[in-house]
Every structure is written in structure tokens, then in C-alpha cells.
């Protein structure tokens, strides 16, 4: 038995790797169509993931928005409101309580909304005075809710609102989205696996004679399997790169309007591209799925092709 020659072995791998790439190159139409299917299947979960991460970032901006707004009864004087704010400050679970008169609220609203002329036509100020309360930080959600109930029960208070609520809703929507994307990612990965598996299956059937002859002259299963695994690898890898390029182009197209939108809301928000992460992740996912798909197809069909 001759000594196993590692140099020849590696050289052989490189040769097979390149020749399987050449094989794809020689059938440009079929290859492009397969790559597009794989690319789109990889692109969809990646794109949704980026949208989700960006939404998380937006909601993160209001992380500190754990505030309670106390809308006071209309007929109450500003003096009484200020007294109430001072009184509330003495409560142990309140760190900050600031009073804002109805007039101040109106001025603020006028500035933000730009509805100045419309507001001037109103006979009186429709906005109530408000006390903005910041509860003790790091206390459990239940305690904050209990505080909210106590505040709502005060006779001077018309309505007590926890600003947190919409944030929680956003987060749970986000959570739902994340699960949805995970399911979608799994299903689409499965479809990539099947597309590659099926493509490899056809390649195997096309080369039945060759496989038989190789086995007759002493080719091992590993030798027969190798070119197909490399073909699967190329499909996955190139599909992943295609998905990445398409993703960047899509982000480039929507980033302009999104920045405009953020500017309109006076937000510090900047669209996160995750370009580096995706450059690494998409081709890697593609590659793994490609090799796996090829492996499944090859192990299913190869043993059936024996010389007779």
C-alpha cells in the first residue's frame, strides 16, 4: 500500500472545486435561475431581520419613557396643581414630578404641531394641565402599575396614563415578529436545502454512466461524492453572495426616505445596515445549506447507482 500523499489529495480537492465551478459556468441560464431562487430565499429572512433590528433600535430610543402623565381636572388652578406636584414628590416611589400648566401645554403643542392658526381660532384652551411623574427606576412593573392606580384615584386627577403601555405593545409586536421571522427563516432554509438537493439529484442522474465507470475502475464513494458536494457548496455560497448584494441594493434604495422620515420626527434614528454581519452570515448559511442539501441528495441516490 502506497503512502497516502496529502499534497496530491489537496491538489485533487482544489481541482474538483474549480472544475465544479466551471461546470456551473458552462450552464449560465440554469445556474442563474437556481442561484436566484437560493438568493431570494436567503434574502427574505435577512431583510426582515434587519427591519426588526431597526424597529428594536427605535423602541430602544424611548427606553427611558417609563413615565406617568397625570391629566388634572379642568377647573383646577395652577397653584393647586403645583402644590399637588410638590406633595407627590414626597411619595417614596416617585423620583420626579413636574407640573405643566394648561397654557404651557398649549404653547408646546402649538410649537410641535404647527397648527398655530387653527389653535388661535379656538375659544378656549382644550388642553388640561398635566403633572409628569417619573416613578422610582428599577422597580417591578407591578409596583409601577399599583402606583398608577393610586394616582388615578386622587380626586384632582382626571386621567392617569402610563406611557410605558404603548412601548410594551411595540415590544410584544416585535417579539411576535421575531418568532415569525424565525419560522420563516427555517422554512426558507428548508426550501434552499430542497432546491439544492433537487438540482444535485438531476446532476447525479445526468452522470449515471460516469459514476458507474468510476466505480468499476475503483473509485470510492467519497471520490464520487466529492464533485457533487462542491457543486452544492458553490450554489449555496454564490446564492448567499447574491442575497447580500441584493440586500445592500434594497437598503440603499430605502435608506434615503427612511432618513428623511427620521428627520421629520426629530429622531436620532439611523438605519442600521448590518452589512458586515450579513456579508459573513449569508454566504456562510448558504454554504452550509448547500453542502447539506448536496449531501442528502448524494447519499440518497449514489448507493442506487452500482455497476451491473
Amino acid at each position, binding site marked *: 500500500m502506497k503512502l*497516502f*500523499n496529502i*499534497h*496530491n*489529495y489537496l*491538489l*485533487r480537492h482544489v481541482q474538483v472545486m474549480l472544475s465544479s465551478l466551471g461546470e456551473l459556468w458552462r450552464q449560465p441560464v440554469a445556474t442563474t435561475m437556481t442561484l436566484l431562487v437560493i438568493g431570494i430565499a436567503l434574502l427574505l429572512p435577512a431583510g426582515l431581520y434587519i427591519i426588526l433590528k431597526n424597529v428594536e433600535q427605535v423602541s430602544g430610543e424611548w427606553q427611558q419613557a417609563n413615565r406617568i402623565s397625570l391629566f388634572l381636572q379642568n377647573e383646577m388652578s395652577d397653584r393647586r396643581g403645583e402644590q399637588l406636584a410638590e406633595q407627590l414628590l414626597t411619595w417614596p416611589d416617585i423620583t420626579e414630578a413636574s407640573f405643566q400648566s394648561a397654557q404651557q401645554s398649549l404653547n408646546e403643542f402649538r410649537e410641535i404641531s404647527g397648527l398655530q392658526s387653527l389653535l388661535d381660532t379656538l375659544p378656549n384652551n382644550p388642553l388640561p394641565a398635566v403633572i409628569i411623574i417619573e416613578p422610582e427606576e428599577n422597580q417591578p412593573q407591578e409596583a409601577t402599575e399599583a402606583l398608577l392606580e393610586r394616582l388615578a384615584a386622587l380626586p384632582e386627577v382626571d386621567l392617569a396614563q402610563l406611557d410605558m403601555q404603548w412601548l410594551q405593545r411595540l415590544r410584544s409586536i416585535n417579539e411576535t415578529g421575531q418568532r415569525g421571522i424565525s419560522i420563516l427563516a427555517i422554512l426558507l432554509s428548508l426550501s434552499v436545502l430542497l432546491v439544492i438537493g433537487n438540482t444535485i439529484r438531476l446532476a447525479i442522474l445526468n452522470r449515471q*454512466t*460516469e459514476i*458507474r*465507470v*468510476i*466505480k*468499476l*475502475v*475503483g*473509485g*470510492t*464513494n467519497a*471520490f464520487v461524492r466529492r464533485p457533487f458536494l462542491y457543486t452544492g457548496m458553490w450554489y449555496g455560497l454564490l446564492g448567499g453572495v447574491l442575497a447580500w448584494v441584493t440586500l445592500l441594493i434594497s437598503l440603499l434604495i430605502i435608506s434615503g426616505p427612511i432618513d428623511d422620515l427620521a428627520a421629520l420626527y426629530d429622531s436620532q434614528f439611523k438605519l442600521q445596515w448590518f452589512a458586515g454581519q450579513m456579508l459573513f452570515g449569508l454566504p456562510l448559511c448558504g454554504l452550509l445549506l448547500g453542502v447539506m442539501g448536496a449531501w442528502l441528495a448524494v447519499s440518497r441516490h449514489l448507493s442506487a447507482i*452500482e*455497476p*451491473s
Partner: protein
Amino acid sequence: MIRFEQVYKRYESQHEALSGLSFELLSGEMAFLTGHSGAGKSTLLKLIALIERSSHGQVIVNNQNLNRLPKWKIPYYRRKIGLVFQDHNLLHDRTVFDNVALPLIIAGENHREIGRRVRAALDKVGLLGKERSLPIALSGGEQQRVGIARAVVNRPPVLLADEPTGNLDPELSREIMYLFEQFNQVGVTVFIASHDQDLINQMSYRHITLQHGKLAENHS
């Protein structure tokens, strides 16, 4: 080199292709396997090449009991058996050179060694000038010689041929047989299945004749 001991081969259809076959071929011997079609010649060669396994009895090649050879070792075993077929079994999308080089590539030989040995094998069968041709551009006799070059390029100790002259006219057949004789003269054990009685009678080698899967004749 090749020994059959009470070998039976039964197919699922209950058809018995070989029954109770025993014979021995010595190392360096050349012999013909004859018999009417359906007598079991191909089956016998398939058992030696481990394309099929016997239902009963021992097949021993090169001191190795083939019944005990695990499946994963079959490729390595086949590298020591040169196989020549009636229909050549060439790959038509590859050049003559690449066809002959296939066993060496599989065995992991290096580039220079492959070139050297493929040319030596093609030279031996008289096709050195055709290494860049595709098999389809060659005549039937030339294609068969490519098949022979591929079978011997690995320098196997055993050469099996199943009706190698089946599609050739008498003169070309004689040339092919002469090639086999040459390989035999350098020590290769050659075993040729053929029903071309005229051709076999011209050559003074041992005959092993099968009839309905049984040994009918075994003489020099």
C-alpha cells in the same frame, strides 16, 4: 491467482446462473472462458470483479476471500483488477487521455506520473497520437484499445475481459488478442470470456467452458 470453490450464484428469479463451479487459474496464466450465451460467463467475471457476490461457495482472488471483503474495501480491491468490456464503457465527453487517466486520478497519483503512465499505456496499444481525440472520433477497434489501455494503466496483476472482440471483425479481433498476449507475457494473469470459437482455437491457451452454469470442459 483466481480460485473458485463450489460456487453457486442464484438470482432472485430462482434462476441459477452458476452451480457448483470449481476451478483455479494460476498466477501469470492466460485462459479463455467459453460457452454459449447465457451459460454464465458474464456472471463468473462479475463475481471476480465483485460486481456481484456468490450465493454459496468461495471465490478467492490473490489470496483474498471475496466473501469476507467488506463493502468499503471493494474500490481498493477493484484497483488491482483490470476490466475490459464488450461495449468499452468509455466516457464520451472526455478525451482519450482523460479516459485512460481515470484510474490513476482515482488512485491519487501525481500529475507527472499520470502523464507518464497514460502515454506508456497508449503507446502499448498503439494510440499515442490520439490522446487528444474524443472516443466518438475513433473506430470500434481503437475504442476497444482505449478501454484496454485504461484497464492496464494501473498495472493490475489481473486482467479480465468480457467479450472484448464481440463487435470487431476477425482481423481486429486478432490484434486485440495479440495485445492481451503481450500483457500476459509480462506476468499479468489474463482471463478472457469469449464465444468466438474460431479465434480461441487459433491460440493455444487453456479453455474453461461453461454449460448451463456448470463446468463442461477445463483443459489446455
